[in-house]
C-alpha cells in the first residue's frame, strides 16, 4: 500500500471518535482509503426508514481532489443513477480540500432530503419528479421499502 497521508489518518480517527448522527463510515480493514458507508434516510423524506449503503474512496491526490462516492443500495432519486452514481457539485467542481469525508456525507444526506429534479442524473426519475411529484415520491418510498429496509 502506498504510505497513508496523515490527513486520512486524522479524518478516520475523528469519524470513529465523533460519528455523525445518521451516518456511519468505517474504513475497510485492508484499505484505509476505502470506506464502507451507511446513511439512514432522513426523516420526512421518502427515504425515511431506509438504510442506504455507499462506498467512498479517497483517490491518490486526496484532499486535492474529491472523494469518489457511490450508492450500493438501489435508490429512486433524480440525482442518483442506476449505477449509484451521485450528481453533487461538492463532489465535482465545488470540491475544496477544506471539505472532508464527513461534510461530503452530510451533503449526500441533505440531497436525500431535497432532491433536485431540475439537474437530473437519472432522467426518467427526474422527469416523473417534475410532472408528477406525488407519484415519484410514492416510487421512492416503494424502492426504499423494497431495497433499503432490512428484514
Amino acid at each position, binding site marked *: *500500500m*502506498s*504510505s*497513508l*497521508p*496523515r*490527513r486520512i*489518518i486524522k479524518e478516520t480517527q475523528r469519524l470513529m471518535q465523533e460519528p455523525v448522527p445518521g451516518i456511519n463510515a468505517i474504513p*475497510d*480493514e*485492508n*484499505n*484505509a482509503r476505502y470506506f*464502507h458507508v*451507511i446513511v439512514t434516510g432522513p426523516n420526512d423524506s421518502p427515504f425515511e426508514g431506509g*438504510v442506504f*449503503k455507499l*462506498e*467512498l474512496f479517497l*483517490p*491518490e491526490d486526496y*484532499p*486535492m481532489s474529491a472523494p*469518489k*462516492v*457511490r*450508492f*450500493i*443500495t*438501489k435508490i429512486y432519486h433524480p*440525482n442518483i443513477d*442506476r*449505477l*449509484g*452514481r*451521485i*450528481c*453533487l*457539485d*461538492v*463532489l*465535482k467542481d*465545488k470540491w*475544496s*480540500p*477544506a*471539505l472532508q469525508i464527513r*461534510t461530503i456525507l*452530510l*451533503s*449526500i444526506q*441533505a*440531497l436525500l432530503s431535497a432532491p*433536485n429534479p431540475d*439537474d*437530473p*442524473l437519472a432522467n426518467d426519475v427526474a422527469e416523473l419528479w417534475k410532472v408528477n411529484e406525488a407519484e415519484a415520491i410514492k416510487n421512492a418510498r416503494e424502492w426504499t421499502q*423494497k*431495497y433499503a429496509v*432490512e428484514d
Partner: protein
Amino acid sequence: MGSCLCKDKNDSEEDNDTGVGRSQQRHARGSLRNSYRNPEVLQTSASVKTLSDTVDKLVRETLDVISTMIDNEPEPPNSILMLHSITEKPAGWIELVRSLMRVVPVEHPMGPSVIALLLDDSPLPTKESVLKVGEMVAPKYGLKNNLRKERNLCVIIGCLAEKLAGPSSIALLNNSMLKYLISNLNEDIEPNVKLLSLIALEKFAQTSENKVTIQKTLQDMKQSPFLTLEEYVLSTSFLLRQIGFCACWCLDNYFPVSGRQYSYENTDVSKINAMLNTKDVSEYLKISADGLEARCDAYTFESVRCTFQITKGCWYYEVLLITPGVMQIGWATKESSFLSDDGYGIGDDKYSIGFDGCRRIIWHNAKSIPHSLPTWKSGSILGCLLDLEKQEVIFTLDGESTDPYRHIFNSVKQGFFAAASFMSFQQCRFNFGLEPFRYPPQRAFTNFNESGMLSSSDKIILPRHIYLDMLRKVSVRDDSCTLCFDKKATMRLEPCSHRGFCVTCTEQLKFCPMCRSDIRRKVQECTDSPVNVEVSDVEAIQTET
C-alpha cells in the same frame, strides 16, 4: 450544501463520473469502462431471439472482442452496450449470470476478468437477484457435473461478495453458501473451483460480519483447510501455486490461525536487495512476504513499482508468468501515476512502457504497438531490458526478442523503476537477480539485486491490518496544516487572509479552500522553525519493529 450540476453538458464525459471510480469509465486497456449511450437502439436487432440465446451470443462476442480491444475506442463494443441495457431488468441480470456460467470457457485466459468486468458494469442487482445466485449452489443444480458452470459461479459469487460488501454480502453468505465454499477447499475438489472458492471467501471477509462468521466456522474445524492449501505455494503446477499464494494471503490477512507465524516472520529476506515496493503500490495488489511475487484479485487495474531506481546504465530483470491474462509489465518513472480505478497502469502514460503478452501488444503513452512474439502462457519468462546509454527498451518472451523501442526516451531519459500492472486474477513473480536469469541479454548489464540496498525494516512486508493499526496510532501536532495534517502551517492567502496551510499544500491551491476566493498572493508567515517535517512518524514506527 451541494447541488447537482448535470446541466453543464460541456464536459459530459467527466460529468457522468460522479461516483466511485472503481466501477466506471476505466481506460480501454486495463478494463473497458465507458459511458453508455442509447443502448435501446442496439437492442432491436436482438429482440427476435430468446433472451438466453441473445445474452449467450453477447457474452461470446465480448470474450472475442476483449482480447483485441486496443487503444482508446470512443465507445465500448456493442455487445457490452447491449448487455448493459438487458441487465437493467432483474430478469436480464439473472440471465447474464446464467449465461456467464454457461459460456465462459475455463481455459480462456481472460475468462474470470471478463466475468468481473461484465458484472461490475451491470446495474446493481436487487437483493432477490443476489439471493437467486446464492441458491444456485444447491446440489439440485448439478454444479458438480459441470466444471465450467461451477468455476464461473464461484467467480460470480466472489465478485458479488466484493461489489455488495455490506448487508447484501451478509445475506448471500448464508449457511449453505458458507458450507459450499468451505467444502470446496477439500483436497478432492477440482483446483479451479478450489481457487475461486478461496478467493470468494476472502471477498466475503471484506465485510467484517462475514469475516467473523467464516473465521468461527474455520476454528470449529479440526484444522484450518487454508494451512494445507498454503503448502501449494511452492507447487510446480501454476494453478496450485495460485491457490497456495491466496491461502497464504488469507492466513496472513483475514483468517489467522493461532500458532502459525505470519509469513513476514519466517521469510528469509537476507539476500534480497530489491523488491516490489509496498509503499509504492495501488491499494489492492497483494505482494508476497519476500516482495517478489504479486497478485491482483480486485476488479481494478492494480500497479506497483520496485524499490530500486535507475539513473544510468543497462538493466535487466525477468518475470515468471504464473497466470496468462492481462498484465502490463515493464518500466515506469515516479511521474507515472497509478489510477487503478480508471484502468490506467504501466504504459498508459508517457512516463512508462509495458509489455502485454496476453493481447500481444506493447503499451506506451496509452498507445498500443503490436509485436511479433507469441501469446504468453503460465510459465513463460518475460525479460525486460532497459539500456539508458543506447536508449533502448527490449522485451523478450522465453528468449525470443522484440525490436528495440526508443519512443519513451523522448519524454524521459532516466529515473526508471521496474513496474507492472495487473488485471483481476493475475499473478507473476519477479526475478531482480536473486536467482540466475534464464535468458540473460547478450550485452553487458547490471541487476537490481546486486546494486540495490534495503534496510532491514524496509524489507518487512507486514500484513495490512497490522500496518494500518500502526498507522492509526499516529498523532498530529496542533500547528499542522489543516489540509494535510503533515507539515507545519505557515502560509497565509491574500486577499482573503485565510491561514492554516503548509507550503506544499499551498503550492497546489488554485483558490482558497475556505472561501473559494481567488488567490493573489501566498504569504509565508513564520519561519522560526523548520517548515518541513522530514521524517514521518510512519517510518519511525517501522524502524522500531
